[in-house]
Each structure stands twice: as C-alpha cells, then as structure tokens.
C-alpha cells in the first residue's frame, strides 16, 4: 500500500459529491430516463406490447391508425409492438461488447503507458495499424469469416474497441506515472502489476467510466450499422435495424409515400437510445471534470 493514497473516508465523500452533481445535471437525468425506458422495454416489452411482435397477418403495409398505432409491415406485423420489443438484442450485445473492449483496452493501455519504452512503442504501432482500418470494415471481414452470432458480435466489437480504449487509458496512465505515489510505490519495490492495477487503475477510473459510456454509444451505433449490412442481429428478431433493412427499399415507392412508417419509428427509436446514452456520457464527463 502506498502511504500517499487517499484515506478511504475522503474517497467515499468524493464519490457522494460526484453522485450529487450527477443528479443535479439535467442532461444526465434525461439520458437516464430515456435509456431506462428502453431497458424496461427490452425486459418487459413482450408483456406490454398490444400485439405479438412476430405474428404475421394479411393486413400488410397498413398506414398508422387506431388499430395499429405505427401501422404494419410487409408481413402484416404490428410495427408499434416491434418497436417496443426491438431494444432487446442491441441492449444485450452492445453493453457486453463494451465490457470486453473496456477490459481489454484498460489492460493494454495501462501496460503500454506504465512500462513505456520499447513495449510502449511496439503496442502503439500495432494500435495505430488497427485504428487505420474503419471499425465497420474489420468487423464485417471477421464476421464473414466466423459467421454471425451474438457471441461473435460481442467478441468482434469488443476486440475492435480495445485499441481505441487503450489510447485513452494510456494517455491517462502517462499523466499518473509521474505522480509521487507511483514513484513511492516503485521505491517500495512493489511489483509492476500491483502498481498498475491497484495503484494507478483506481486513479484513472474517471476517464475509464466516461470512455465506457461513450463506447456504449458507439457500440449501439456499430451493432446497428452491422445489422443494417446484414452481419449483425438476424431476422426475424424485431430489432430496429433489422426492421429498417427489411423495409428501406420501399422508400423509392414515392406514390405510397415510401411506406415511411415501416422505417421512421424504428429509426427514431435507435436515435433516441443513442442520444440517451450520449447524454449520460456528457453528464458523467462534466461531473468528473469538476
């Protein structure tokens, strides 16, 4: 244990202070409400929805009305019920992928930043190389090779996020490395892993938490994009991006106003979820900056 570490009581009160600030932040609270609503729908959506989201009927492509609030799709399924239940898969894959990326990136970033020298140079070069291919392109390539399933999606997105997270963690670690408590721990002959994970990690937790929320936003973005391309969540899931992939070609049918309801409502749902997550990230960022 470093003699210069903050006493626990002080850390506790700082945590309460941060929490108090978060609850006063309008962006954070609005974000929590939006995301909370979709989490509720992901868990209980099937019970709340007026129709079975997978049930097909002969009333195809009905415009929104009193029977079907958001209309029906090409298979006569109720769009309102599908939107309510559509958060399920993306809210399973995206947080898990974020977790993989955050854990991987933290380990790589801490190691690279703390060790410095040759190890840092080599890791940084590899990180640069991976970062120079767009995330979606790497993900598509690997998903084709391994086949798409919930597990591969989580692992692929997690691995692709690792170098991005590691950059942030490395930068934070470099700043901490010069602090007295790290020098003290080194002089006290603590082992490198102990210093990295028990001494430095708690002090870079702020940036890590902010990065995790920002990454969660991007994970939802990426899962949606991959699903749109056909490599993510698979039909007949009522996933929002699946709904859009299945119906966007109808938009060119301008005579029927492009059957806009089949894509507008799932689109608005994705947008609200992503914005909700970003509002939370914004609130956290401000709280940790203070």
């Amino acid at each position: 244990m470093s003699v210069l570490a903050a006493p626990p009581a002080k850390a506790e009160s700082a945590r309460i202070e941060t929490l108090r600030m978060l609850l006063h932040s309008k962006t954070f609270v609005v974000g929590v409400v939006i995301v909370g609503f979709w989490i509720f729908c992901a868990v209980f959506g099937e019970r709340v929805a007026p129709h079975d989201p997978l049930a097909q009927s002969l009333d195809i492509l009905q415009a929104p009305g009193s029977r079907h609030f958001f209309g029906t799709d090409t298979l006569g399924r109720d769009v309102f019920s599908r939107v309510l239940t559509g958060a399920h898969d993306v809210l399973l894959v995206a947080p898990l992928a974020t977790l993989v990326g955050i854990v991987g990136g933290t380990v790589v970033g801490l190691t690279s930043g703390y060790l410095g020298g040759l190890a840092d140079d080599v890791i940084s070069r590899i990180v640069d190389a991976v970062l120079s291919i767009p995330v979606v392109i790497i993900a598509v390539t690997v998903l084709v090779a391994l086949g798409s399933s919930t597990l591969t999606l989580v692992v692929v997105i997690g691995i692709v996020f690792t170098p991005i997270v590691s950059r942030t963690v490395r930068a934070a670690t470099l700043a901490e490395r010069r602090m007295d408590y790290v020098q003290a721990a080194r002089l006290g002959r603590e082992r490198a892993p102990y210093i990295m994970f028990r001494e430095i990690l708690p002090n870079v937790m702020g940036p890590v938490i902010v990065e995790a929320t920002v990454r969660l936003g991007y994970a939802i973005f990426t899962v949606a994009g991959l699903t749109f391309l056909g490599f993510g969540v698979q039909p007949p899931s009522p996933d929002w991006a699946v709904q859009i992939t299945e119906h966007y070609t109808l938009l060119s049918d301008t005579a029927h106003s492009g059957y806009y309801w089949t894509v507008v409502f799932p689109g608005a749902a994705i947008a609200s979820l992503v914005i909700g997550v970003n509002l939370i990230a914004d609130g956290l960022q401000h709280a940790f900056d203070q």
Partner: protein
Amino acid sequence: MPPLIRFFLRRLGLGLITLFLLSITVFAIAHLLPGDVGRAVLGPFSDQQSVDILNHKLGVDRPLATQYLDWISGFVKGDMGDSLQYQVPVWGLLQPSLVNSLKLAAVAFLLVVPAGILGGVFAALRSGRAADRIITVGGLSFTAIPEFVSAIALIIVFGVLLGWFPVTAASPDGASPGTQLQHLILPGLALVMVLFGYVARMSRAGTITALDADYTRTAYLKGLSTATVIRRHVLRNALLPTIAVIATQTGGLLGSLLVIEKLFNYNGLGQRIYTAAQFKDFTMLQSGVLLVGIGYLVTTLVADILYLLLNPRIRYGEAE
C-alpha cells in the same frame, strides 16, 4: 536538415511501418475465411479433383508467407491478382469503385467543411446562447446517430415528401456531371450529418481561443471592424483544429461509406468490400481493405503537413 523535412520523413517512415503492419493484419483477417478457397468458388457439388486443381491454379495451396509476399509485391506493382468471384483482375473492378467513392467523399467534404467552419464560428460568436446550444448539441447528436438512420430521414424529407432529389446515388450511364451531382447530394448530406458536429465543435473551440487572444484585442483596438478581425485573424486560427479533426474522422467516414453506399445502392469501394465479404472473394477483400487503409494514412499525413504549413508556431517550435 530543416525541421520541416525531418518531420515529414519521420511521419512518412512511421506511416510505412504502420502500413506494413496493416497489410499483415489485413492478410491475416482475409485468410481467416474458411480455408478451402477452391471449394468456396466451385460450390459443394464439384469433385475434389477440380477443387484441388483450382486451388493449385490460384496458388492458395502454397505456404502463407509465400502467398503474402506474392500478394504484397504484386500490390505495389498494381497487380492484385484475379477476383475469385468474377475471374477478372481485381484492380479493374476496384479502380472505378474507388473513383466513385472519391466523388461521393468529395461532395461530402465540399459541403461539410464550409458548413462546419461557418457553423462553429457562428456558435462561438453567440457562445452560451440558444444558437450556440442548437449548433453544438444538435451537431453532436447527429454524429452519434447511425448514418443510415439520418440518411433515411433525409430520403423521406427531400426524396419522398419534397421530391427534390433522386433517392438512389447511381446515375444512369453516361449521365452529365450535373445529373451525377444531383444523385450524390442526398448520400453526401448523410455523410455531412455524421461529420458536421465534429468539425463545428473544433472550429468553435478554435474561434473562442482566437477571440480571447491578445492579438485579436490589438486588432480591435487598432480600430478594425468586427468583420475584418474575424476574417483576417480569427478564421485562420479556427481553421487549424478543423483540419486536424477532418484527419481523425477519415477512418469513420470510410466506414460510413460502406453503409451509405449500400443504402443508396451506389457502386463504390465500400459496396465492393461489402460484396467481396459476402461472396468470400478474399483477393478482392484484402486489396480493397488495404486500399482503404492507405487512403486513411495518406489523408492523415496530408492533414499533418497542412497543419504544419498553416501553423508557424509548430513549424519552428515543436517539429523536433
């Protein structure tokens, strides 16, 4: 050696190392594809002998290191082998797609750079007021929304409701540049929505710093009008961070191309990579992805150099 040239050579060297690692990564990913290429091309019903013959003809039965060297030395000379799906040279297919993607990217950049810079400067001048909040919060929200969602909003408003622009990006063969441009406006705008927030935020930050600087106060005290001060002193400084952010967003832009090209049914590099991945056409896939990586590295290098040329402080100070 002058610091500028030394900086350039250093960046170029690092870029080449990155490119080498990238090519290995791409090759490794492409070879993760189910091993038997001949089987993938000929289908499950052909006999083992013809599969073996094809594998031998394609050279995929050789050691991986040989295949890598063969590919990379060919790539440098512009010979990327034959597409497994179409049985014609890869470059012949990639080249027109690359041109198409560059056209789309050019339209997007020509729209987003002035719009982003002006938006950022405007927000900075109204800092803290409603217009500022709308531009910064609105812009950043759009960067977070998946590009196909905002693109669909654009299609519905401008294509379906107003009928101003065509809803596909592909124009008829031999269409005039004007018609081609008309087809590229909506997909271009979709890319603008992804990028606008980043550019506007950086240009806003640059403008606020410049507005607070001593040289701006001096300019005002000299009796120059607000318009002149902004044009001569503030804009130039707001431009710098904007160039930097454009470089960092190129990777994301290239990824967005994949999605936007599919949505608008446009034959670009993204669409090529997407079909290559679908049909397990790994010769096309590896060269296409490497091309994207090269595009990214070249853009970052050019942006770094532009940044240096426009910013004398860095040129003489930190280039070491």
